[in-house]
């Protein structure tokens, strides 16, 4: 199956044709055509990804890396092809630097535990930001509790940008690790991760970038960024759930102890002593998510073939159209107005609760997210219980935005 010919992501960017590649978008919700505006929580899947998953289980399924028979070899090839696609997608140096995980959360936990065990001591400082997802807070708190390290937080400015002046002040010789989000899932802010990495490296401090929200929108080049670790989730970038990627510099991965023990990750095992396998195996104990690596590989290739420039232009158009439309609504306040922003609009309407607005939008067939978006400290910072968040992906269109704006107007009329 030649996947490059199964969709029309050739030279011209055709939003209509792209939308048609996502079969789920044709369904109804509550008797209305579905308007799906929650892609930041999990994206829909294009037909090529669905076909790849089906193809894997229909024709290739066997356990990997240990069968002498041809089918197992073919399954291994499919699994490792996913890794090579991930390497190419991230422009990582080698496949040894690309690990499969369950997702962003597991990637961050892996680094917090393994890097932490090797390199973090009492009194060391770990620098995160005030707009982190709980996934990039709690693993560091666990590490801090265990080691006596201290967590420092880069504050967020009123418009949703990081306070880079405070960052300069907080980054000191005591800072032994920096972990920041590339694009905020609650605000849409695109953070200056390249600058953060440069400055941290000037202090010999490694940096992890949480790319969960960046990979569906931005071209990622881990070498150009010089990121020590870059993590993301398959399900947010048009791929399956249960799989994610962690790219890490070999020098760190080599120096870190393994995360979990089990099959695949060992070279020899006796009851006295076990020696560990090489990278990437060392961090991939147990039978991997084989269909997942196949699916995420195809999803990444699909995203690249869409063409970032045209995709960004389309998404930015939706973002501006939505911002403009929503801003007309009395009492509506947009949370997060950074100059560099991805296609996410978080908002509140004076006198209404996000839960109520979300409930009415649901009845109108519009799927948005309400609540704190797993960023409670950020919501506390803004003094709000949560927001209503609409996030736009490449398959959304202006009609979706219009339905959203009409829906919010209607909800407001009902609630106030």
């Amino acid at each position, binding site marked *: 199956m030649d996947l490059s010919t199964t969709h029309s992501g050739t030279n011209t960017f055709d939003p209509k044709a792209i939308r048609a590649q996502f079969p789920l978008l044709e369904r109804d919700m*509550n008797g209305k055509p579905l308007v799906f505006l929650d892609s930041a929580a999990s994206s829909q899947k294009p037909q090529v990804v669905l076909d790849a998953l089906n193809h894997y289980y229909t024709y290739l399924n066997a356990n990997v890396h240990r069968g002498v028979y041809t089918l197992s070899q073919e399954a291994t090839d499919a699994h490792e092809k996913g890794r090579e696609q991930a390497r190419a997608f991230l422009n990582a140096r080698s496949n040894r630097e690309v690990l499969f995980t369950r997702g962003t959360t597991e990637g961050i936990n892996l680094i917090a535990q393994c890097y932490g065990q090797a390199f973090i001591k009492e009194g060391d400082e770990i620098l995160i930001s005030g707009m982190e997802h709980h996934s990039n807070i709690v693993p560091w708190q666990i590490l801090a509790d265990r080691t006596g390290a201290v967590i420092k937080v880069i504050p967020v400015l009123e418009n949703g940008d990081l306070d880079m002046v405070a960052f300069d002040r907080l980054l000191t010789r005591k800072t032994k690790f920096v972990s920041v989000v590339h694009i905020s899932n609650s605000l849409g802010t695109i953070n200056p991760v390249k600058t953060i990495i440069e400055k941290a490296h000037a202090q010999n401090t490694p940096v992890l970038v949480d790319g969960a929200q960046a990979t569906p929108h931005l071209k990622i080049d881990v070498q150009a960024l010089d990121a020590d670790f870059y993590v993301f989730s398959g399900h947010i970038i048009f791929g399956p759930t249960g799989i994610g990627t962690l790219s890490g510099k070999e020098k760190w991965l080599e120096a870190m102890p393994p995360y979990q023990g089990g099959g695949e990750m060992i070279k020899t095992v006796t009851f006295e002593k076990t020696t560990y396998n090489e990278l990437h195996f060392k961090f991939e104990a147990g039978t991997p998510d084989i269909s997942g690596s196949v699916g995420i590989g195809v999803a990444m290739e699909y995203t690249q073939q869409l063409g970032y420039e045209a995709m960004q232009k389309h998404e930015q158009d939706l973002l501006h159209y939505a911002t403009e439309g929503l801003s007309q609504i009395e009492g509506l306040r947009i949370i997060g107005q950074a100059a560099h922003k991805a296609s996410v609009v978080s908002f509140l309407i004076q006198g*209404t609760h996000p*839960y*109520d607005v979300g*409930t009415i939008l649901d009845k109108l067939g519009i799927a948005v997210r*309400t609540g*704190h978006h797993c960023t409670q400290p950020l919501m506390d910072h803004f003094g709000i219980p949560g927001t209503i968040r609409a996030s736009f992906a490449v398959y959304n269109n202006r009609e979706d935005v219009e339905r959203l704006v009409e829906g919010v107007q209607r909800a407001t009329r*009902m609630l106030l």
Partner: protein
Amino acid sequence: MTIDQIQQEIIDEFSFFEDWMEKYEYIIDLGKGLPLIDATKKNPDHLIKGCQSQVWLDAQANQNGNIQFTADSDAIITKGIIALLIRVLSNQTPQEIASSELRFIDAIGLKEHLSLTRSNGLVSMIKQMKLYALAYQHKAQESND
């Protein structure tokens, strides 16, 4: 009226609504009309924290031993459903509250508000109402002994 009679009354009322809009407008009105909880009761001890919205609940036994609930929420639809719950369960005996089966929520098409993903505090609130009832039941038994 018994708990079950009130539930039936609500189910009958809701059967007149033509569409979801009318139904939700009514729930929103109920939410707006919910009698205020005593301001001193709106504290962390009475708070039931949901992920999406939160609920404050208080229970007091009146002279004849029946339980009087008052509650509040920061979300108006949650508050409307609370108003219905209070109408069904308030001013009933602890025994009846503790053993009640709340069938009206499903019957009037509001079950989704009790699903896990909503996390609006309502499920815990119902549990808490029954726990209050059990506690008063115990207290009443002890003073009878």
